C-alpha cells in the first residue's frame, strides 16, 4: 500500500493539474472537476495495488478522467441535489474565469457532440494520437480525421456563439483552402 500511494502521490504531482484542467473543460462545475480528479487518482491507486500496467500511465489517467467526466455530466443532467422546501442553496459556483475565455470555450464546446469535446480536450492536454485513441476507444488511424472535423466544428461554434473579441480564434483565411 505504501509503495502504491507514494507512486500515486508522484503521479498526482505530475499530472494532477493537467487532469483538473482537462476536467474543467468537460464538466460545468468546479466541484465536478475536483471529483473527476479525485475519482481518477483513487482508481489509479486501486489499479496500482492490483498490479495494473504502468506502461502508459498518462494515457490511462486521461482515459479514466474522460470517462469520469462523461459520467458526471450525464448524472448532472438527470440528478440534482435533494433540497428540502426551506433549503435555498444554489448550484455549485462555476469555475473561475478571469478573462471569460474558459466560459466561451466551454460554451462553444457544449454545442459539440461528446466525442468532439473529448477529442479536443485530450489534444489540448498534449496527448498523442495513441493516447487519445486509448482514452476514447477510437481507432488510432481515425484520430486525425476526427480531430480535424472537431476543430472545425469548434471554430464554427465559437463564431456562431458570438466570438467577437475572441482573439484566440482570429483565424487567417487562406484562399483556396479546403
Amino acid at each position, binding site marked *: *500500500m*505504501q509503495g502504491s500511494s507514494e507512486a*500515486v*502521490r508522484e503521479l*498526482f504531482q505530475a499530472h*494532477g*493539474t493537467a487532469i*483538473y484542467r482537462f476536467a*474543467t*473543460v468537460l464538466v460545468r462545475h*468546479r*466541484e465536478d472537476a*475536483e*471529483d473527476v*480528479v*479525485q*475519482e481518477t487518482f*483513487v*482508481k489509479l491507486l*486501486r489499479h496500482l495495488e492490483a498490479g495494473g500496467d504502468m506502461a502508459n500511465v498518462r494515457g490511462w489517467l486521461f482515459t479514466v478522467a474522460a470517462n469520469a467526466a462523461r459520467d458526471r455530466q450525464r*448524472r*448532472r*443532467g*438527470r*440528478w*440534482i*441535489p*435533494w*433540497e*428540502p*422546501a426551506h*433549503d*435555498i*442553496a*444554489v*448550484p455549485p459556483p462555476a*469555475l*473561475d*474565469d*478571469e478573462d471569460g*475565455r*474558459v466560459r*466561451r*470555450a466551454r460554451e462553444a464546446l457544449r454545442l459539440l457532440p461528446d466525442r468532439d469535446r473529448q477529442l*479536443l480536450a485530450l*489534444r*489540448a*492536454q*498534449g496527448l498523442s*494520437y495513441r493516447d487519445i485513441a486509448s482514452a476514447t476507444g477510437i481507432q488510432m488511424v481515425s484520430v*486525425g*480525421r476526427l480531430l*480535424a472535423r472537431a*476543430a472545425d466544428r*469548434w471554430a464554427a461554434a465559437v463564431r456562431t456563439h458570438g466570438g467577437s473579441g475572441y482573439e*484566440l*480564434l482570429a*483565424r*487567417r483565411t487562406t484562399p483556396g*483552402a479546403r
Partner: protein
Amino acid sequence: MNCLHDEQLQALADGEGTSADRAHAESCAACGARLRDRAALMASIETALNPPVDLPASFRLKADAAGEGATRLRGPFQRSRSFRLETEGTRRWIYSAAAIAAALVAVLFVVPAVRKDATTVSASEILAKSASQLSAVTHGVEVLEYELVLGGVPKDLMPDQVEGTYRIWQAIDHDVPGRFRFASYTSDGRMFSSIAEDPIARRRVAAFTSEGQDYRFDVTLPSGPRAMSLPEMQRLHMEASITMMQASGNQLVETIDGPNGKLYRIEVPRVAAPGANPVWDLSEARVLIDSRDYSIIEFAVQGSLLKSPYSLSYKQLRHVVGASLPADAFVVPTRPGEIVVTGEGSAVPTRDVVVLALRALAQAKQAR
C-alpha cells in the same frame, strides 16, 4: 504528390504527420499556408481548452465523491455530513497511505451508510411527486387560475378563439365529487366560455360564444355512474404527460430561482420513439415545478395526437386550496341576449351541444 487532405494537415499540426507529408507542406505554398492555418487553430484550441486554472488550495480528499459506481450527486445536506480528509497545514490534497486507506474504507463502508438517506433526487422522482400532487387535494374548494395556450388539435376545436390563448379560472369542490366550474376569458377580460357541473342538483350548464352570439346549454345530468368530469380529464392528461416524461431516458433537470423560491425545470427533448407512429407522441415536453410543494407552475407539451400536431402550454397564475367562495361561484352567470337550450344531457358535453342544437333547430323549423 497531391495536395494534403485535412486529415494529413491535422496530423502535421499535431506533430503526428509523416515526413513525406511534411516535406510536401514545405514545398507547396498552398499546403504550407493551410498547415499554418491549422496549426494556429490548434494552438488556439490548446490555449482555450487548457485554462490557467490550478487545483484550488481548498481541494481536499472527499471520500463521498470517490464512490465507484455512484449515480447520485451530493447535495448540501450530504456535503455537510461528508467524510473529508485534509492536511493539517496547507489544506492541499496529500496522498498519504493513511489518507488513501481511510478514503477507501470510507468509500466502501461509510459512504453507503450515509447514503441510505435520499440526498439526491432525480427528474423522474420529481415528476412522480408532482404527479401525485395533482390528486393530493381531497377536501375543500380548490381554485386555480392559469394561462392556457392551445395549438393544433385542441385549438381547432375552439375556432372562435383564433389566437388560442385563454385565461382560465376553475373551482373544484373536492367535498362534492364532480362539482366544479371552469371559465375561460379572452385577453380583454371577456368571458369566452364556462362550464359547470353539480352532481347533487344533477345539472350541467355550458355557456360559450360563437360568431358573436352567446349560447347557454342547460341540461340535466344522466343518472347512474358519474362520467369523468372535465377536471379529472385535465388531471389525467397532465398525469399521462408526466408519465411519458418519466418514461423518457433523457430528461434534463436543473434548479432555477423563481419569484417565490426554487423551481425544478425538467425538459424532455423527445418522448416517443421517432417513426413509431404512435397514437400519442410528445415531441417535446417541459415542466416547471415548485420545489416547496411540487405543484406544477408551468407545463408545455408539443406533439401529435392521431397524427395531428398539437401543443398545450399551461402557466399557473394563482392556486388556492381551501378557498372560500360565494354561493354563486359554481353557477355559470347568465348573459343578456344569450340563446338558452335546455334538455337532457349525457356523459359527453360536446355531444349534448350538438344534439340539443340540432333538436332546437328542428323545433324552430317545425314551428314556422
